[in-house]
């Protein structure tokens, strides 16, 4: 018995029903692929904004610095530590932090001075590519600084303007210096947007009279697929005496949201596909009831219950396969569209942020293998689950009763 040709013939016998069932499944699949791709896009944007804009995978601080960010709580030998981190295959960047007052014209605002080495920082974060206007720091331009978006607005500065920084240097003297805005960042996160003031580490050391030490070392795994916990343990072993935390511990809110996002996707899949499963169940049950007489004849001529079960499953499989192919094609196509043309939310929410990490106002989808295969796989699973009852129903028919069934 050729199961496939038999199933195909049966499916085509009531092609209206087949078309509706298949389209229902395909539609649900398309929607879920699009949803998964959009969720993936949102999560990747959040993680990127958290990890790639500022955090890095892992951070090292002197003990107590995170509770009380004090100019004097420093990692004393950052150069040696950076060296050993790089030797172990990590990318690492030392950062200096301080607080000061930035003034331009008659306006002023409190800022967080962020002294960085642009070359090392570019290996760890992507913030240098996230400019609204102007250019990123350059080690040749000692007076050049890059400021957060809201800070630029507060101070009323654009690229090329002068900003004065006043603070208290580590020797207690007044630290003041004139800088020129090289660039303004796009929205990165609440903290950086409002007070982020990036300057060269050398300029920071001069300004704050801080010849050595660093306040933070951000570390990035060279290979994103390696285990974060193992990498954190490895970094911690290199940075003995200091506090080593991964970004999930540094930004627990974001980490939780990302974890929940996966659960949310599965939940959505279940809700939508239970409805689809009902459609499949109903359609197949109908088709079984219509053919009770036929199944009776089949059994009478020696077709086994297993073969009948297999036939009903095959009929469903034919429909769901077509639906899956449609869903993959059209789902990919629609997700692709939103991957290239983001949904502009700036009209609805000007600056949304999760746990202090800003979200781009334009929401892009992101097609990943998971985003394509998870909805399709679930569709297959649900359809095959839904057909168990009709298939069993057909398999256990008693031939004599079925032959007389009207």
């Amino acid at each position, binding site marked *: 018995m050729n199961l496939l040709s038999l199933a195909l013939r049966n499916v085509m016998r009531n092609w209206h029903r087949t078309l509706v069932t298949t389209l229902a499944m395909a539609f649900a699949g398309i929607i879920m692929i699009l949803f998964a791709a959009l969720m993936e896009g949102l999560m990747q944007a959040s993680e990127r904004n958290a990890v790639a804009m500022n955090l890095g995978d892992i951070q090292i601080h002197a003990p107590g610095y995170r509770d009380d960010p004090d100019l004097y709580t420093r990692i004393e030998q950052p150069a040696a530590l950076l060296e050993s981190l790089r030797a172990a295959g990590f990318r690492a960047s030392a950062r200096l932090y301080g607080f000061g007052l930035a003034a331009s014209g008659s306006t*002023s605002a*409190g800022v967080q001075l962020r002294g960085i080495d642009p070359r090392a920082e570019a290996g760890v974060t992507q913030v240098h590519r996230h400019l609204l206007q102007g250019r990123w720091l350059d080690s040749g331009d000692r007076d050049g600084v890059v400021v957060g978006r809201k800070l630029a607005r507060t101070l009323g500065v654009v690229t090329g303007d002068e900003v*004065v920084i006043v603070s208290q240097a580590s020797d*207690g*003297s007044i630290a003041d210096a004139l800088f020129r805005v090289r660039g303004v960042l796009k929205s990165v996160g609440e903290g950086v947007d409002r007070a982020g003031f990036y300057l060269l580490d050398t300029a920071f050391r001069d300004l704050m009279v801080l010849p050595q030490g660093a306040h933070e070392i951000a570390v990035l795994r060279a290979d994103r697929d390696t285990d974060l916990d193992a990498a954190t343990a490895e970094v911690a072993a290199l940075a003995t005496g200091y506090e080593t935390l991964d970004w999930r511990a540094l930004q627990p809110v974001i980490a939780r949201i990302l974890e929940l996002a996966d659960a949310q996707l599965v939940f959505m899949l279940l809700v939508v596909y239970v409805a689809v499963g009902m459609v499949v169940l109903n359609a197949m049950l109908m088709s079984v009831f219509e053919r009770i007489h036929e199944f009776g004849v089949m059994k009478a001529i020696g077709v086994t219950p297993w073969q009948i079960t297999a036939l009903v499953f095959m009929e469903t499989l034919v429909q769901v396969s077509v639906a899956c192919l449609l869903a993959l094609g059209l789902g990919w196509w629609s997700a692709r569209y939103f991957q290239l043309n983001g949904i502009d939310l700036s009209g609805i929410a000007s600056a949304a942020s999760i746990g202090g990490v800003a979200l781009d106002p334009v929401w892009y989808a992101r097609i990943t293998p998971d985003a394509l295969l998870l909805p399709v796989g679930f569709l297959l699973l649900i359809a095959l689950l839904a057909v168990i009852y009709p298939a069993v129903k057909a398999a256990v028919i008693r031939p004599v009763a079925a032959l007389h069934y009207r």
Partner: protein
Amino acid sequence: MRSALHRFGVLCALGSCLCGGAAVAQPEDGQAERATQILREVDDLWRGSSSHARVAMQVKTEHYTRNMKMEAWSKGKEETLVRIVAPLKEKGTATLKSGNNIFTYLPRTDRTIRLTSGMMLGSWMGSHFTNDDLVKESRREEDYDAYISFEGERDGRQLLEFTLLPKADAAVVWGKLTLTVLAGSYIPLEEIYYDEDMQVARTITFSDVKPLGGRERPAVLHVVPADKPDEYTELVYESLQLDIQLSDAMFSLSSLRRR
């Protein structure tokens, strides 16, 4: 002295208290009237309509020790100008307090900056005084109620102790202040600042009483933060003139830049 302190704002300790004396104290206390009377008297004794002083400041913290010399002028209660004379790195740096505003002139960058509210609790010139001290100093009268909490002999001296409690709606960072003065001359000895949990936050001790600005005044103020007993800020008055002629232009933004 009052005006000298006033001009510093920083020296808020004494000045403000004296100022605070003008505030009316707890009404149920029969002594309230007398406290007000005395504090007002003390205040009048110490206050000049204007002043000019040379002061040396030494700041010692866990991380640095620094010595500065400055020159300061004041007029009335609201206007104070402080200019740093030494060290060389900060020479010419000037702070102007005018009403509730503080402006800082930075000679190296040739800029004048108005401090925002966020900077008010920051250290003034690296000392144990905050910018807020500078601003609030002349507002004590409005912010606190004063009464005499002790009167009599202590450590062999006749003393008066005043307690200043912030008024209910006053936006102040302290929970309570106490000021001890000598009973006869009203020379201040000690002022203690309490935080909102009524724990001692800092202590200002006045010493080295000598002729200054035409009468006996303590020339040294020694400030110790309670949480860091090894640190201090010490102000030493080298000279003081009171009730001198000062033009209003002295306390303008343009005069800030003058060296």
